[in-house]
């Protein structure tokens, strides 16, 4: 079969096959992943900067505050011990001891006249009722930012301690600059990273999409590359490849069956057609004509029965008939079949003996099991020589039920046994006997529906066919059926 006969993907109808590499920018999953990456990257950069800020400038701030509070507390306690002069001298001591000249000490009376301190006047810009604040103070001709703490002393006196906060200011200015640049770098890195992620994403799925496109265009031999890293993408690739393998096998099966149909049905159709045409041209009497028509009818009935068998097999394979599953007495079913066929065997000078375990029960489709076993018996009768013995046995084997039909005919070649369940397969020595080559294919379909299989073996001489079935097959569907 050439590729030309494969169904071509429809290109009309709004571009059923969109080119996977050129989606709209906003619709592109790659862009989406990139944006998500950039956003996450930006957010983490901001969080990092915030933490840095808090742990440097913030820490400095908190240290100064704690120092000022401590200073103020000790001055208050000096006041209680030694009074105003004590505070004044303590302040002087501290001012003199302050080598770095980064401290501010002020003491004022209730009218805010300066009593002691290292400034010219009580800072006017500090509101009277405010305890904490920042002041610009002129020191040595330089404008210095100070963090100050004002507090009351008994008797209406007010004191102020302060520390140079320009270090913190410098630091925060430095940090601001750094953070600004860092933000810029983060944006650049985010964009570059997003681009890289998008590219990576595309590169990873490019092979998958290329393979899928090739397959949908009809090339079923293409497979997704597995990189051997055993990662998620390899897993995906393997899953897709397994799926493609299965599709390929199914396609082969379909191809094989349609070839077989074309070939195997052509013969009887040709025969019927020839017969009719021959009669139409050459028949001399009405009786001749009638006979030819009748025989053509028989041929056509044969063709119909092949079709029916094929449809039934595919119906069974589709699993559509699990709906008819129920528990039934397999022993009774087999006894009936044995009785039905025993008469035929006897008429042909053969014997049919049966050995079936009492009370053998099966959860399955009664009609289908009947047909499957009937097919096996049909075969056994067909290939047994006169005087031959046929045995049917059935017994429970753990969770399985085994049904064997044994004949002592010519048997089957080992190589043929492997192919015996293929549709339309007929062993070389069976070609002269009537049949369509679908009997065992149906038996196999029935066995598989019942979670089992069919096995062929040499009965020395003859053929032993074993039907293996799950005696209580339960899946979700049948479980609900039994519950209902």
């Amino acid at each position: 079969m050439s590729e030309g006969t494969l169904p071509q993907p429809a290109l009309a109808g709004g571009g059923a096959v969109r080119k996977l590499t050129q989606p709209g920018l906003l619709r592109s999953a790659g862009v989406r992943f990139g944006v998500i990456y950039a956003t996450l990257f930006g957010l983490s950069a901001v969080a990092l900067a915030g933490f840095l800020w808090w742990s440097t400038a913030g820490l400095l701030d908190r240290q100064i505050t704690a120092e000022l509070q401590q200073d103020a507390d000790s001055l208050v306690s000096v006041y209680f011990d030694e009074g105003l002069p004590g505070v004044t001298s303590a302040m002087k001591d501290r001012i003199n001891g302050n080598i770095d000249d980064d401290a501010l000490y002020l003491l004022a009376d209730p009218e805010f006249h300066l009593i002691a301190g290292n400034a010219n006047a009580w800072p006017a810009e500090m509101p009277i009722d405010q305890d904490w604040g920042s002041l610009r103070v002129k020191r040595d001709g330089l404008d210095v930012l100070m963090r100050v703490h004002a507090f009351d002393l008994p008797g209406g006196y007010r004191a102020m301690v302060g520390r140079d906060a320009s270090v913190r200011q410098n630091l925060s200015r430095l940090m601001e600059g750094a953070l600004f640049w860092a933000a810029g770098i983060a944006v650049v890195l985010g964009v570059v990273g997003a681009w890289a992620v998008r590219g990576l994403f595309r590169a990873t799925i490019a092979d998958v999409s290329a393979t899928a496109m090739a397959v949908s265009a009809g090339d079923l031999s293409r497979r997704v590359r597995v990189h051997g890293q055993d990662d998620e993408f390899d897993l995906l690739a393997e899953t897709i490849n397994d799926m493609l393998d299965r599709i390929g096998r199914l396609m082969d099966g379909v191809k094989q069956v349609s070839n077989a149909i074309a070939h195997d049905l052509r013969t009887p159709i040709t025969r019927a057609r020839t017969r009719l045409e021959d009669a139409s041209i050459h028949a001399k009497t009405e009786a001749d004509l009638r006979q030819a028509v009748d025989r053509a009818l028989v041929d056509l009935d044969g063709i119909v029965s092949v079709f029916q068998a094929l449809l039934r097999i595919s119906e069974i394979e589709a699993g559509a008939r699990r709906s008819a599953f129920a528990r039934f007495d397999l022993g009774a079913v087999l006894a009936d079949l044995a009785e039905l066929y025993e008469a035929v065997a006897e008429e042909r000078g053969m014997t049919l003996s049966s050995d079936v375990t009492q009370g053998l029960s099966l959860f399955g489709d009664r009609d289908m099991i009947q047909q499957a076993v009937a097919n096996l018996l049909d075969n056994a009768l067909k290939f047994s020589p006169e005087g031959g013995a046929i045995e049917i046995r059935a017994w429970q084997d753990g969770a399985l039920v085994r049904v064997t039909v044994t004949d002592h005919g010519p048997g089957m070649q080992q190589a043929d046994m492997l192919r015996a369940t293929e549709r339309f397969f007929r062993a070389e020595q069976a070609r002269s006997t009537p049949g369509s080559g679908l009997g065992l294919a149906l038996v196999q379909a029935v066995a598989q529906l019942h979670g089992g299989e069919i096995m062929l073996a040499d009965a020395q001489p003859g053929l032993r066919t074993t039907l293996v079935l799950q005696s209580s097959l339960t899946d979700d569907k049948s479980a609900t059926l039994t519950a209902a």
Partner: protein
Amino acid sequence: MRILVVEDDKDVANFVVKGLREAGHVVEHTPNGRDGLFMAASENFDAIVLDRMLPGGVDGLKLLETLRAQNNHTPVLFLSAMAQVDDRVKGLKAGGDDYMTKPFAFAELLARVEALTRRGKSDAPTTKLMVADLEMDLLSRSVKRAGQKIDLQPREFRLLEFLMRHSGQVVTRTMLLEGVWDYHFDPQTNVIDVHVSRLRQKVDKPFPQPLIHTVRNAGYMLQLEEP
């Protein structure tokens, strides 16, 4: 008998109508589901041969369901190209009495239609069947011919019972498989012929007049005269 054929395929319909008329029946035909429903509901028929896929908005299933909802129990035989087992089950569930798939042999169709009409009539339970000098007692499960007892296996008894219940009618091999063995497939082997021939050995052979006749290309018939 009056038979209604609802079938949209012209060739199939002509063939069926012609065949049924030749067999001595009065046949009405319509190719359309709606008309079919109207005729089936308003007139009295002994049997209806019904296609499933019909034009006119009313398909065969719908037609039958409507008919049964009106408490009309005219025997219905589906004649359909829908051959899957589930289709058959659906047809019988909807109230169909028999289901045949296309393509079909006319002899089979005729035999089944005639069997249906017979079934419609004999509602009362019978305990005794009689054909000529052949007697079957269903209660004691014994068979006599010309006063002489005949020993039958259980399956042979049921086979003869089926033939006697349809005496004077053609009974096909498929009908026997379904009716006597409850099998819904066609074995490749001539199993039915063998069983009928065994029955003949017991029922016909010892007596001068055969009762079980073979009808060529169709099946068997149990009656006194040659068919």
